[in-house]
């Protein structure tokens, strides 16, 4: 309104016009209608002003809100840091679309260099024989997998076929031979190499050298081969230099739905290879399992420590079975990796679990033992309320009712001081010697391989005395020593709830695994109801054993116990045999018996006060050591205990007892 008034002040200019205007105004004022007009104009003006003020207010508030949200003065450092980072990242992956790859193959040395960076170099003596395979990401050039298949030895070519089949199409494959790679390279493997487009691979001969670069399912990018001139000599070293064109990132990735799980999957699949269908574009295998929960789960809040080394494929298989077990609670799982290995950590991240890396200290067995100690201490630190911990290793399959088994039996560990552990593994539970998944035993040995540790036992007894790094002891052997075990026993099932599949290991080799682990019985039935769990308590178990022995039919001791006919062809009977056992540590006859029964014979396992319990031909079979066992009283006077002569001294089975 103020703007309005001064107009009368500008009289001097355009006076005539103004005056006439003024006159009209004056005239109109005198008039009723003019008054109304005036009011109307005033109203219109007022409305206009309101509109303007309003618009201004809206704009102001807008700005205020956007300021508050965006924080008008962003931190200087932050912007700079971003600015600096962006272009360098682009430089790293952007313009360069070709990798130059060098592959060298010879008798004593192989190496692979990508863009001048050595990604594989092996010139160690007596090591790394066979075909080395490297998988590169076709978009980034990153090494996704590195394997060596000793195809000089049997069955390794099968592993290679398995591996190469799992590699996703489009990946860059690099192969190179060190020393010898053809002796056990069978037709299937050769056919596979042919399908990759290799010329020399299928024709690889004794001590040939060979270097190959190709895209899986796509063109061969380079190949060199040198024939060995004679049986006693090697082919000339070959050096293959080739350019590998990179493809775009979109091509290298699958188009999975954008979910939390697939984000983890994508991260995993862009980094590593050799895990098969988990990275399949069309129908990837699930990485979340959501098994049925266990009703009344007593082990829901028991932490699970998975002890791992650098065997990521094992870890992958192990975690799959663990996460599929009924009653598992993933947030209680911690994977402890011995060393700064990336790939096992990737596997852990794929399943969304907690992973902890351990800087290696000490060597060999002592290193494993120190890793165990750190892992157990960390577990109880991370879960200070836990009274128990489940200890697993990376080379175990976990039975579907593993947690159900523990949930039903864990109270024993609380109520019975004479117990040392609960283990999922029966050392003597082979296909032909285990039968009843509902049956539990008490044994004086500690089997390990999936077991429960009481916190008080660890904190008060084991941790303070744990063997120091300079003592090169196996942790499990140490735990089995009488000073530690102090006469306590472990609960085990007749049918194991874990399966030891590891072939490559510190104390492991293929032969050993085949002989002692492959035929182990493993429970696959879900929700097994354990029978009479409270009868496993110290006194109750003695009563149970006495009852069993009283019922048992005494076998014909004149027969050879190694013969199949030693046990009659019946089902569901209980039989007892008496063997000679002079003192508590006299296991001569037992060891011979174990040997001919094809069960664990490398040391004594599974005994309870001179008694062994197993199954033969679906009959419960008890073996009592006389006279050392207190159960010797059950021996009819007429029976003479069986004695088996140990064979004359010769080379025994290879290797010491496996770390279990």
């Amino acid at each position, binding site marked *: 309104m103020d703007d309005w008034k001064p107009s009368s002040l500008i009289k001097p200019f355009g006076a005539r016009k103004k005056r006439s205007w003024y006159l009209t105004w004056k005239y109109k004022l005198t008039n009723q209608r003019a008054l109304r007009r005036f009011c109307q104009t005033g109203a219109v003006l007022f*409305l206009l002003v309101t509109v303007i*003020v*309003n618009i201004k207010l809206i704009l102001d508030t807008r700005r205020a809100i956007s300021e508050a949200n965006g*924080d008008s003065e962003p931190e200087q450092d*932050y912007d700079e840091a971003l600015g600096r980072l962006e272009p360098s990242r682009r430089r790293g992956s952007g313009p360069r679309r070709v990798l130059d790859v060098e592959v060298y193959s010879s008798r004593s040395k192989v190496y692979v260099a990508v863009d001048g960076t050595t990604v594989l170099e092996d010139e160690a003596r007596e090591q790394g024989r066979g075909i080395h395979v490297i998988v590169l990401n076709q978009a980034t050039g990153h090494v996704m997998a590195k394997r060596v298949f000793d195809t000089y030895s049997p069955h390794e070519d099968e592993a290679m076929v398995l591996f190469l089949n799992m590699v996703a199409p489009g990946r860059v494959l690099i192969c190179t031979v060190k020393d010898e790679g053809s002796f056990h390279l069978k037709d299937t493997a050769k056919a596979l190499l042919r399908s990759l487009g290799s010329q020399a691979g299928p024709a690889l001969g004794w001590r040939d050298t060979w270097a190959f670069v190709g895209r899986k399912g796509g063109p061969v990018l380079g190949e060199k081969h040198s024939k060995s001139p004679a049986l006693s000599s090697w082919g000339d070293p070959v050096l293959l230099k080739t350019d590998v064109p990179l493809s775009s990132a979109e091509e290298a990735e699958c188009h999975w739905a954008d979910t*939390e799980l697939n984000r983890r999957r994508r991260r995993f699949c862009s980094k590593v290879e050799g895990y098969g269908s988990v990275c399949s574009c069309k129908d990837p295998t699930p990485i979340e399992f959501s098994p049925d929960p266990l009703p009344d789960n007593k082990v829901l809040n028991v932490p699970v420590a998975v002890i791992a080394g650098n065997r990521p494929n094992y870890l992958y298989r192990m975690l799959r079975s663990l996460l599929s077990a009924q009653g598992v609670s993933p*947030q209680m799982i911690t994977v402890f990796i011995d060393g700064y290995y990336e790939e096992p950590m990737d596997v852990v991240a794929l399943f969304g679990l*907690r*992973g902890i890396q351990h800087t290696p200290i000490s060597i060999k067995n002592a290193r494993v033992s120190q890793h165990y100690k750190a892992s157990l201490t960390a577990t109880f630190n991370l879960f200070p309320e836990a009274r128990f911990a489940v200890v697993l290793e990376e080379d175990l399959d976990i039975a579907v009712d593993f947690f159900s088994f523990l949930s039903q039996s864990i109270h024993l560990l609380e109520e019975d001081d004479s117990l040392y552990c609960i283990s999922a593994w029966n050392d003597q539970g082979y296909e032909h010697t285990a039968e009843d998944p509902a049956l539990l035993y008490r044994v004086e040995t500690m089997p390990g391989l999936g077991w429960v540790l009481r916190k008080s036992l660890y904190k008060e007894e084991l941790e*303070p005395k744990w063997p120091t790094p300079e003592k090169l002891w196996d942790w499990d052997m140490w735990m089995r020593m009488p000073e530690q075990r102090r006469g306590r026993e472990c609960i085990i099932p007749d049918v194991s709830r874990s399966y030891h599949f590891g072939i490559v290991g510190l104390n492991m080799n293929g032969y050993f695994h085949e002989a002692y682990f492959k035929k182990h019985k493993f429970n696959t039935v879900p929700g097994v109801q354990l029978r009479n769990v409270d009868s496993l308590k110290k006194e109750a178990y003695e009563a149970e054993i006495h009852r069993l022995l009283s019922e048992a039919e005494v076998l014909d001791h004149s027969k050879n116990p190694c013969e199949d006919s030693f046990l009659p062809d019946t089902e569901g009977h209980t039989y007892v045999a008496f063997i000679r056992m002079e003192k508590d540590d006299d296991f001569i006859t037992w060891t011979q018996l174990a040997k001919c029964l094809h069960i664990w014979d490398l040391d004594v396992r599974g005994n309870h006060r001179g008694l062994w319990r197993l199954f033969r031909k679906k009959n419960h079979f008890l073996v009592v050591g006389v006279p050392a066992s207190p159960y010797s009283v059950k021996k009819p006077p007429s029976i003479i205990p069986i004695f088996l002569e140990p064979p004359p001294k010769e080379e025994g089975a290879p290797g010491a007892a496996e770390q279990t």
Partner: protein
Amino acid sequence: MSRINKNVILALLTLTSSAFLLFQLYYYKHYISAKNGAGVSKSKGNRIGFDSTQWRAVKKFVMLTSSQNVPVFLIDPLILELINKDFEQVKNISHGSTSECKFFCVPRDFTAFALRYHLWKNEEGWFRTAENMGFQCLKVESKDPRLDGIDSLSGTEIPLHYICRLANHAIHLVVFHERSGNYLWHGHLRLKGRVDRKFVPFRKLQFGRYPGAFDRPELQQITVDGLEVLIPKDPVHFLEEIPHSRFIECRYKEARAFFQQYLDDNTVEAMAFQKSAKELLQLAARTLKKLGVRFWLSSGTCLGWYRQCNIIPYSKDVDLGIFIQDYKSDIISAFQDVGLPLKHKFGKVEDSLELSFQGKDDVKLDIFFFYEETDHMWNGGTQAKTGKKFKYLFPKFTLCWTEFVDMKIHVPCETIDYIEANYGKTWKIPVKTWDWKRSPPNVRPNGVWPISEWDEVIQLY
């Protein structure tokens, strides 16, 4: 211009302008509440209804957590204080009958909630949902201190704090982690390089300036301002804990370096002593806690904690400090009741009080009482034979929590000053012969007890 036309225009203008007027009203309200939220205007208009940004942010957050089954509980000191004042009323109010927004609409920058981490099933999913609901979240992570004590472990980082902003209000979610010693721990909110320093006014945060330790609170569900929230069952105790919750970690790395230089004593005797000293300390801590007496690790026990994160195996006793104003006459009988008879008592409450109790396996528990002067603290010593008095001077200190032998326990926050006063600059070097009357650099002669008082001030059992 016909008149009809003019009327139409007039009507239209009136319509728009009234529409704008409505707009104006609406925006004005927003503007005010936003200003309140930012803490800019401290106007009287505090009592705004249920549409304040604070209340809406809290409501959304409560909805988010309950839909994801995340058991968060309210720890905001300001609001807990208000609830506590009005506790009876809050309890009586049934669902939805509140007419006035009394608690969550109070102007402030943050509302603090807490969560026990191991009860959090789907952290990543929660985070996504929060962002989808319009929260802007900042996550502060750090390495896990529970792995620090163990040689050479490095794990996945653990979340310490979430700060989720909605409009002008932010929810501060403090992540509590379980620690050995039956307590909850939260970490230091340390902003890393890339974080926007002005995301929220960090300085005004109630938690996170230091790491903190709390007793594990029992929870109860109440309805506040129409929202169902969990709060500590004993809000008073929790509120009391907050100002004294600062936690310091043992210096594990330095302790490892110490053991590399001086080697740990692994003999059976050393371990046996450590075990009984630990048990004695735990028993003493339990007893004093029951009495409600504040205490801290003093002398050799404190040095052991600071230097090697353990009990020094060749020390012969466990040493505790108590402020004389916290002295209670039933300390002696309480210790006797748990099987720790009084061994000797020197001084009196007014001057140089010191108590010694006989533990099992010949381990002694010494309790020194500290007296406060204007610029220092001191505790007294008495030589039984001669009646000579000594004074040990310390710079002033406050108390912090730490973890020691599986316990949450107090130590002086200014530990290094405390230890250097007592053991000098060379405290890092182990000394096996120590004369309490001569060795400490902070010992001062303090006269002699008059013989007439000896019966009272020198009591040996």
